[in-house]
């Protein structure tokens, strides 16, 4: 493998890796506030892409993306209010089945609205063949958009959780819900808010990746599995580790193409997931001592 090829693969890996990282962060936000793995996370990504593509006919691109993100946040809030908010002490099995049901419903709705056709947003800058040359490596400007958007979201989120009152309340909620209630935090609203936040982040990811990966009504499932792999790899609930794990998985996948056929690419991510689940279910960066206190 030449040096050029190495960097080309590396950039492809980082691009996909940052998308996986965003999906994983979406998982983590909801997991932290509720203890639920939201199996419909991938559908938020799909919805973001689809809505922005449809809105593009009526408004300029930046506005379409903003409205799409807001609309998806609304969907996220609706999902929480309709299906999750009023359940009294739901079991894990119940939550798994409900969120899977929601993901299928969202997918079917998308199928009936947008059909089976594959769509995409236009490139934010230039077109398919515009490239930057970094030395001898060619990079599409969209790749930079993806990486920038991911970086922006990660920084924005960590600032949000550290410095804003709402962010702090959400963290309090995830650490100890009873104590949070005693401090006068409306935990139910925090849960709704975490669904909105994670839907919005997913939708944003769906918009920036759409020009590269295209959007179809069923593209969410694959992303959800990858995102979950990344969330587990980094340790469930740990968003910073999810970024590192996302990049790692993206790069492994990109390089795996040079060894095994493309058709098996997805199988590789899942094999990694299974191996991690078997030997280190608390993640690569999680501490095994804290893990001993939890159920896997």
């Amino acid at each position, binding site marked *: 493998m030449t040096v050029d090829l190495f960097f080309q693969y590396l950039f492809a890996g980082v691009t996909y890796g940052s998308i996986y990282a965003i999906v994983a962060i979406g998982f983590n936000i909801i997991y932290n506030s509720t203890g639920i793995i939201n199996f419909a996370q991938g559908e938020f990504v799909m919805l973001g892409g689809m809505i922005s593509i449809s809105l593009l006919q009526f408004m300029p691109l930046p506005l379409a993306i903003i409205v799409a993100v807001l609309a998806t946040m609304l969907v996220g809030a609706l999902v929480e209010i309709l299906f999750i908010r009023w359940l009294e002490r739901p079991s*894990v099995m*119940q939550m798994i089945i409900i969120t899977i049901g929601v993901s299928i419903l969202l997918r079917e709705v998308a199928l009936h609205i947008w059909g089976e056709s594959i769509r995409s947003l236009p490139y934010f800058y230039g077109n398919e063949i515009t490239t930057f040359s970094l030395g001898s490596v060619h990079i599409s400007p969209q790749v930079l958009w993806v990486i920038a958007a991911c970086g922006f979201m990660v920084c924005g989120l960590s600032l949000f959780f550290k410095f804003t009152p709402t962010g702090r309340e959400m963290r309090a909620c995830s650490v100890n819900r009873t104590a949070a209630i005693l401090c006068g935090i409306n935990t139910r609203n925090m849960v709704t808010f975490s669904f909105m936040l994670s839907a919005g982040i997913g939708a944003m990811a769906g918009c920036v990746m759409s020009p590269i990966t295209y959007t179809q009504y069923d593209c969410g499932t694959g992303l959800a599995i990858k995102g979950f792999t990344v969330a587990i790899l980094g340790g469930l609930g740990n968003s910073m580790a999810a970024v590192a794990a996302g990049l790692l998985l993206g790069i492994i996948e990109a390089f795996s193409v040079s060894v095994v056929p493309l*058709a098996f690419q997805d199988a590789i991510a899942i094999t990694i997931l299974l191996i991690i689940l078997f030997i280190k279910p608390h993640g690569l960066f999680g501490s095994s001592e804290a893990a001993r206190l939890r159920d896997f």
Partner: protein
Amino acid sequence: MKVSKTNKILCLCALVILTQVTTTLTGTQYYLTQLTMAAYYGLVVIGLGVLMGYAGQISIGHAGFFAIGGYISAAMTTHNLVQLQDTPIISFCSQMGLLMERQDIYGDQLLTFAPWAACVTALLLAALIAFFLGIPVLKLKGHYLAMATLGFGTIIYRLVLATPLFGEADGISEVPAFTLLPAIGSLPPIMVSGDFGLRVINYYLAWGVLIIGMILLLNLIDSRVGRALRSLHSSEEAAEASGVHTSGCKVYVFVISAVYAALAGVLLTHYNAGIGPSEASVMKSVRYVALVAVGGMTNLWGTLIVGISLTFLSLRGVFGSYDDAVFAAILIGVMLFSPAGILSLRGCLLPSKQEIAPAKEENL
């Protein structure tokens, strides 16, 4: 009023015969085709029902086991071995009677494994995979278990889609009939095939397999293993403290339910004379979980009834293009309003039932 197990089985048998007679009398025998297929899917669903309801372990990868059964037997009974005829292994298999010779529609010679050899191989393979997958996977709980089994199902789907031997996106067609008993005198042969003349026999065959499977599972539930399972469902620590080999029990049931799914896969593949990758898809696995959940996790009869009737309606195309959406809506509705299954709704009328129902899904 408590109906005994034997009476329930007899009722089911009577219903099966009644249905067949009714369809013959009214000239609506075409229903039998879907009823046969529904019975095979029912086999997957009751196997999964024991795993989910009694052992308390979710599996979103059962379509994977179904596909292992279907694809292995389809590939073995259609892959032509004529060119390898003289290699020692193949001639050894031939001497053992494992091979079947026939002609394809163009008159070319076709040498493949016999369906029963393929069936045994498929079931053994499914059991082995379930065993070696179950040991690490069943140590996990909740979300982790769900994702791990989902991951397994997805890997099988990807493998099937990417392997030329399994026909990639086209699947495998022209799978021969599975002859269980050759024609004796004037009696017709008993074989699993989609031939119209054999529709009634196949109907009884499928339901026979389903009823036998049901009896075996009911016995399992009432056995020592069944009691161990229920104890580990309500509290794994307590079960372990009372000397139940919890991990062994879970793997045991996982293997059994995998074999049920694989057997259904084998038989349905011979009945349909082919199998496609959609049988291995995640949506199928989710559908099996949905049927179990709707029927009631700890209610094998409910699972059977709901599994058969919903699958039958879906196969008849009653839900049209909203098929998946209907399943999702039912799934959500049941989980929200009646997590112990749709048949437990009558528990609202009978207070004794109501007390039992919520206690059952505390765990996992």
